[in-house]
């Protein structure tokens, strides 16, 4: 297990290095000079040159890459060109919106998908099953940002239960903040819940056909007991993988959803940074998201190997 973990950690580190080089190279291509953008149209060439120097933009690309990558390793993400504050600080502020949103959506998606998938599998072939499968097909086809607009239409415009957007912050207590994140989280959760429910259903149907389920029934367990005690546990392995993968989808999906609800999260930050040519923020944000995805995949791999020893051989 240790050897497996080490070899996975090595490939994790390698992926991060390659990813950082790719991101840096892509950003290098971006047209537009951040220094002249920051100083505005009336800046003198001398002032622009001085600022370029100050920002370290005159150094060779390799030196700048090393400075950027080295800084990130020590938690120094550089200073935002436009906000004039450390990028790490900026990201931490916004993370307090995006991370709770992604976790909230993940919780909702799991809470919806588990009973739905369970019912569909237990009543396989019935009208309920067909209804659920049809609904999940629809759930997968609905773009989450459009579903978000529909939620706004129903719950904010017509029923007035929620506000159509904005975020009150955590300072005023968790209640209003959680309320402001409810519609966005629901919008993010629906397509993911549909996928998860389908995965759970097919995993359950497969495990329910196994011999040990028949044995469990033969020793007197009811269908329900056999499903919950034996089948569900074994069906959880593929489901957990999907949940792990979904976290990164949710974090990235939040970028669009934050725009629908005007939430001051990482997504809004990345868009503002792109339009303002705040390259250091764009670079660091993309790297952070990639890191999150790679890390989650790594953890899922480890958890998988922890549960199923057979997987440890496949390095």
């Amino acid at each position, binding site marked *: 297990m240790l050897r497996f973990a080490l070899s996975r950690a090595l490939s994790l580190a390698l992926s991060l290095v390659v990813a950082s080089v790719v991101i840096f190279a892509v950003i290098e291509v971006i047209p537009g000079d951040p220094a002249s953008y920051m100083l505005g149209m009336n800046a003198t060439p001398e002032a622009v040159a001085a600022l370029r120097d100050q920002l370290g933009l005159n150094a060779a690309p390799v030196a700048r890459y090393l400075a950027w990558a080295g800084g990130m390793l020590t938690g120094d993400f550089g200073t935002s060109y436009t906000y004039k504050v450390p990028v790490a600080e900026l990201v931490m502020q916004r993370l307090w919106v995006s991370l709770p949103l992604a976790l909230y959506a993940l919780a909702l998606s799991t809470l919806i998908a588990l009973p739905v998938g369970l019912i569909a599998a237990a009543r396989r072939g019935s009208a309920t099953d067909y209804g659920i499968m049809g609904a999940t097909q629809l759930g997968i086809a*609905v773009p989450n*940002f459009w579903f978000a*607009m529909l939620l706004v239409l129903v719950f904010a415009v017509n029923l007035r239960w929620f506000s159509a957007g904005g975020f009150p912050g955590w300072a005023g207590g968790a209640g209003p903040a959680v309320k402001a994140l409810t519609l966005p989280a629901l919008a993010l959760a629906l397509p993911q819940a549909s996928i998860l429910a389908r995965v759970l259903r097919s995993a359950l149907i497969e495990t329910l056909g196994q011999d040990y389920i028949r044995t469990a029934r033969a020793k007197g367990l009811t269908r329900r007991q056999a499903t919950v005690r034996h089948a569900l546990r074994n069906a959880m392995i593929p489901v957990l993988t999907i949940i792990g993968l979904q976290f990164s989808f949710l974090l990235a999906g939040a970028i669009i959803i934050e725009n629908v609800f005007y939430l001051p999260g990482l997504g809004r930050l990345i*868009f503002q940074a792109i339009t303002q040519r705040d390259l250091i923020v764009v670079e660091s944000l993309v790297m952070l998201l*990639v890191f999150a995805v790679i890390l989650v995949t790594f953890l899922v791999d480890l958890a998988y190997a922890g549960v199923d020893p057979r997987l440890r051989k496949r390095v």
Partner: protein
Amino acid sequence: MKGGPQLWIGAGLTAVFVVAALVSFVWVPHDVTALAIAEKLKPASATYPLGTDHFGRDILSMLMVGARTSIAVALVAVGIGMGAGVPLGLLAAANRGSLIDELVMRGNDLIFAFPSLVIAILITAVFGPSALNAILAIGIFNVPVFARVTRGGALSLWTLDWILAARVAGKGRVRISLEHILPNILNLLIVQGTIQFSLGILAEAALSYVGLGAQPPTPSWGRMLADAQTMIYTNPSLAILPGLAIVGMVLGLNLMGDGLRDLLDPRVRRARG
């Protein structure tokens, strides 16, 4: 019915949008580039079957041309994915365990590690928002998908006796890949192509919704939704119709993909009884 009802419902739904897109090349009810402010925000009528938007443009015509944009972007993106991914997958499978195989697979893992939407946003931001850059951004993420499916399908074929027979007959790896492997994994590729097509439609809608897809005056479903958002209090129907179009097209493709898989993969057919 062969292939089951979902294949035919899916194909029918998809056909509606494809036909609408094709018809829009030769005829639309109203010109979508001409602004007619006097006609703005009209409800549905005989002249404007689905009403007009805030610039007085006919919604039905916008949806028809929008179908064209969506389908074109998603289709070309699938083409890019297949064009690059299939040869890479065949190459990797033909040289299993070699350095080439390792490079292709690790490259795949790397692209998978990037949150696709974030990179699509990055690409369109770097090279400027346009339909072409949206195609590229979506297409790049199709490459590892097709490479993986192709490699997986090809690997299982390479172990079979009749491939061995072809090798004994003196055929090279390239010839075997093209003459024997490729035709036998076409089923897999068609099913995956349908799925990537529907994901492409969703991705295009998301990109143009945030303003990084096709640029005005070219109508696109995502952009129509973005425009409608500011008027959601006064004209909710503007926010509903383009969304229904996206859902219809994606649902059609997904149903068709599932139906095709059942039809083309005998194992699934047997399992379903």
